[in-house]
C-alpha cells in the first residue's frame, strides 16, 4: 500500500535558518503592504498624487508591490539555495 509521502523526505539542516529568513522577509513585505493599506485608509487623497513617470501613487505603489514580490522571491530563493548547499554539504562531509 502506498499511503506514505508522495516524495522522499530528507533532513534539511538549513530549515531553521531558511525559516527565520523567510519570516524576516515576510515582515518587511508585510510592512510595505500595510503602508499601502494605511495610505488608502488614512490619507486616501495621496493615492491620486503623481509620483513618477506620470503615474499616480496608487498605480506606482500597486505595481511596486507586485514587482517587489517577484524580486524578493527570487532573492529569497538564492539565499536559501546557498544555505542549503553550504549547511547540508558541510554536515554530510562531517
Amino acid at each position, binding site marked *: 500500500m502506498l499511503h506514505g509521502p508522495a516524495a*522522499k523526505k530528507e533532513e534539511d539542516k538549513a530549515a531553521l535558518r531558511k525559516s527565520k529568513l523567510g519570516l524576516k522577509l515576510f515582515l518587511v513585505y508585510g510592512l510595505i503592504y500595510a503602508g499601502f493599506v494605511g495610505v488608502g485608509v488614512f490619507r486616501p487623497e495621496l493615492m491620486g498624487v503623481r509620483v513618477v513617470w506620470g503615474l499616480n501613487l496608487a498605480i506606482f505603489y500597486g505595481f511596486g508591490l507586485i514587482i517587489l*514580490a517577484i524580486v524578493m522571491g527570487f532573492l529569497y530563493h538564492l539565499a536559501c539555495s546557498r544555505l542549503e548547499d553550504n549547511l547540508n554539504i558541510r554536515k554530510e562531509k562531517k
Partner: protein
Amino acid sequence: MIYDVSSLAVIIFIVFVALVLLLSFYFAGKTKTSSGYFAAGGTIHWGVNGIAFAGDYLSAASFLGIAGMIAFAGYDGFLYSIGFLAGWVVALFVVAEPMKRMGTFTFTDALDHKYNSRSIKFTAAVSTLVVSIFYLIPQMVGAGDLVVPILGLPHWAGVVIVGSVVIFIVATAGMTSTTYVQFLKGGLLIIFSVVLTFYILRKGLETDPNPEHHHYVSLGVTNNPFGEIILEDDSQYVIKEGISTGNDRFYLLENEGISNWFHLVENEEGMFLNEMLTIVTDAEGNILYNGAPRTERLFYQVGHVSRVISDGEEVESSGPSNPFNFLTRIEDSEIVRYIRTSFDFGDSSVVAWYPEITSGTDIMKPGLFYRLEGASLMEKLNFVSLMLALFLGTAALPHILIRYYTVPSPRDARKSTIVAIAAIGSFYILTLYMGLGAMVNGVLDMESSNMSAPLLARSFGLGIFAMISAVAFATVLGTVSGLIVASSGAIAHDLVDKFFKVKMEDRVKVRAGKIAAFVVGTLGIIIGILLRGMNVSFLVGLAFAVAASANLPAIIMILFWDKTTGRGVSASIVMGIVSSVLLILLSPSLFERYGLAREAALFPMDNPGIVSIPLSFLTLILVSLYTRKRVKQ
C-alpha cells in the same frame, strides 16, 4: 444582451476540450496508486508545477472577475490583483517549505503531522471542503457566463458542461491530468493576455471606440411655468411619466412606439434627459430591454471616453500608447461609466443604468467601489478587512497547498512557487490594461461584468475573441479541477481513510477519490446554476476570507508557537469557518441578495476577515493554553 455565436470560437472550444480529454485518457492508464492520484506521485518538474500553480490560481475570478471589476469600478478592481499576488509572499516565505516537509497528500496531513488527532483530521477535512466549495461557486458562475456568448447556450448549460468535463478530468487521472491541464491553461492565459494588451495599447483611446458603439441620446430640457419638465427642441420624443427616487429623477419617454427611461441631469450647461439602459419586468413576468423584447437587441454595450486628453491636448484619438502613457492618458481624460439603480413604477420593477461622466483621476485611484475619501469608519474597516483576507487567504487555500506535494523536494516547492509568483504577478499587471481597455472601448455588458475581457477581445476581431474565450473556458476548467482534487482528497484520504479508519486497499482508495470527485462536481454544478449573476471576484474574496479565517491561524501557530495543541488547532478551524460564514450570511451584500435593504444587514461589512481571523487566532491560543493546563493537571 444577446450575443452572436462565433463558429471559430466553437471550433477552438471543441478542440480544446478534446485535447483536455485526450490528456486525461493518456494519464489515466498511468494513475494506479493513491500517491499518483492525489499528488501526481511527487514527480512533477518544478517549472511545470510553477506554471500549473499559476493555472490553478488564476481562476475565473482573476481573469473574468478582476478585469470586469476594473472595467466597472476602475482601480478598486486592481486592489484584488495586488492583494491576490501579495498573498503569495506569505505562501513562499512562511508556508511553502514547511508544508512540503510536514505533509503527504493533503492540507490535513500537514496540520496533523505531529498531533495524530482525530479532531484535526475531521475539522481540517471539513475546512478543505467548505473553502473549496466557496471557491467553486464563482468558477461555476463564471463558466455559465462564458458559454452564453461562445456557444449560444443558456447559462445552466455552461455550468453543466464545465462540471462534466472537470469531473471527467479528475476522475480519470486525478492530480496528474489536472496538473497538465493547469499548465496548459496557465501558459495560454498569460500568452493571450499579453496579446490582448498589445491590441489595447495599439488602439489607444478614442471618443468613438468602435463602429457599432451606441451614442446615448441626451435631450435638452427646461422647466415650464408649472415646474414641469418639457423638451427644449422639436424632438420626436414625448415625455409620458416621471418619478423621483432619492435625489434622482427619471422620466419615461416614447419615441417611434418604444418607451424607455431617461435620467434627469443638471449641470452648468443646463438640464438634460440622458438615455439609460433599462430592464423592466412587469407583473406578469414579461421583460423589456430598453423598452423592447431582448431579441430586438436594443440593450447596447457601453463604456467610452467622452474627452480624450493626450499630452495635455484634447483629441479625438490618442493613437497608439505605451504601457505608461496609456495609464496617464486615462488619468487625464474623462470616461462615461454606467451607474446601476432600481425603482418600482406601477406594477413594474425597473433596473436601470444611467451614464455618468467620471474623471480619469477618480478612476485611477481607489474609491469608486470601496469609498475611502470621506468614508465612514465602517467603510474603511471594510477595505482593511478585504486587503487582510486577500493577503492571508492565498497561503490557506487547500487546492493551492496540495500542489506542494506534486514536486520531489522542498527546494522544488520553493522554485515552483517563485515561477508562480513571476507568472501570476505579470498576469495581474496585465489585468489593469485589460480592465481599463474594456472600460473605454464600448464593450461592456451591464448585465455581466464577468464578460468584459472576452467582449473586449471580440471588438478586436473574431480570431482573438475565439482564443480568449477558449482560454477563459480553460481558466475555469483548470481551477475547478484543482478544487475537485482537493475536495476529493479531503473526503477519500482525510475523512474515509484517516478519520473513519475504513480499511481500503490503495486501488479502492483511488476509486473512493473518484467517487468523491463526482459528488463534489455535481454539487458545484447545482450551486453554480443557483447563484447566477454574482461578480466572481467578489465571491472569491469571500472564499479567501473563509480560508484565511479557518486555516491560516492553524498553519502559522503550528509553525511558530510551541504551545499549540491539537484541540487548539481544531477549535480555531471551527471558529474560523463558523464566524466567517456566519458574518458573510449577515453581510450587506447577502442581505441585498435576500431582497432586503443593505442597511438592514446585521453585520455592517461585506468582508468578515478583520473579525473572523483574529477570533480564530484567539481561539487557538486560549484553547491550547487551557488544554495544556488540563494535561499537566
